[in-house]
């Protein structure tokens, strides 16, 4: 299933596919937010924004606006088990 980081549910994991905009901060990419890497949604702040993710072993919090620019493929936990 295809979606964006912003639409992940808590505890759900996905593999980054691409960025829909070029405006993504370089710092995010350096921290490992790159196509092919795994993202897990750890926590959502009250009022649904920002979101707290674990990508590539780095724990980072990003705003929803940015999360929407990261397209990803959800890993179906049930099927893989």
């Amino acid at each position, binding site marked *: 299933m295809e979606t964006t980081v912003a639409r992940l549910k808590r505890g759900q994991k996905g593999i980054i596919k691409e960025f829909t905009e070029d405006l993504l901060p370089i710092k995010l990419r350096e921290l*490992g937010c790159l196509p*092919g890497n795994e993202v897990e949604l750890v*926590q959502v702040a*009250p009022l*649904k924004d*920002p979101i707290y993710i674990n990508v*590539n*072993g780095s724990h980072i919090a990003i705003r929803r606006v940015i999360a929407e620019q990261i397209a990803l493929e959800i890993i179906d936990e049930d099927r893989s088990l």
Partner: protein
Amino acid sequence: MSKQINVALIGNPNTGKTSVFNQLTGLNQKVGNYPGITVEKKEGICKLPRGVRAHIIDLPGTYSLNTTSLDESVAVELLLNKNDKDHPDVALVISDVENLKRNLLLFTQIKDLKIPAILVINMADRMTRKGISIDISLLEEKLNAKIALVSTRKGTGIERLKDLIADYKSLSKAPNVDTTVIDPEYFDKLKKTFPKEDIYKLWLVITQDVNFMPIEKNLIKDASSFSTKTKSELKRLQQKETILRYQFINGILKETYKVDINAAKGFRATLDKVLTHKILGYLIFFIILLTIFQAIYGWSEYPMDMIDGFFASATEWVKDTLPPGVFTNLIAEGVLAGIGGIVIFIPQIAFLFLFISLLEETGYMSRVVFLMDRIMRPFGLSGKSVVPLISGTACAIPAVMAT
């Protein structure tokens, strides 16, 4: 005469660069645990085996050579500018055990600048606790570089590191990653226009907005007039470069770096769940804030009363002992009252700073920033503004300056 070499310490924020610096130089620099502590470079001297003296420079933390802030460009400038008297003969890239992957990004970039580099893996004492194992000799072979596994907390591995630095001439200068593959045509043109310059260095000069010495500035000017790429094209290329580097790194780490996940998880996840919880998180934050206010206004009253009492009796004593006159009034009503008016605030300030640094160092502040970001946004502020907001309750001036 013994010769002196320049050694630069560089690495991600929070990897213990300053601790390594202290171990090497014996200086006792204050070590902080929040990002951006090393804003200016620090320097020291270290005696190495075989009569070599090393001039050690501790650079601000940076995630890569793509700078986004002032402290980061300090590091990049020094690495690029060969004419700088501090230009390093050896770069020590400091990494911690847990975030090796992220740190290797920076390491490969420095290798590609053809600066002899040693990878220092710090916090080795945490390896067993975190379930990490690294095949050092294989990693050395793959990166074509020397690695020192050290623990600054226990003081292990420093002697081997000194040996490696003294032996810097035998370090390989071969680059790790060939950046030109991201756009062969463009890099070919660059190479032809500046045949004398190193290609990766050119690439960095073009993509970074950093200040260089005059010669380098001319280079930039030429380069930018030559560069036919728009900003977004360059940015896309930078992205390609980062992906390329991570592919290289992932390939290596797959064979050399193993983590036992069961050992690694647990405490942090549980703590995060509570601290960033919808209701509990705010409750804890509120309790902590109340404690801070209680400390500043309540507990500090006792030392403040003592200071007040001390200055009151000192004034009295001066008035009683000295003969009445202009001079006595100056001492009693001017000097003593003036100093007393300042000193009386020391307990409050001390408490405030104690709590703020405690919150910063434990990483709690980042969780608060996460909780508050959405709430602060309608006011045109970000979650980070919580820090000045807190200090603003004590004194408004620094808070206003921080926004």
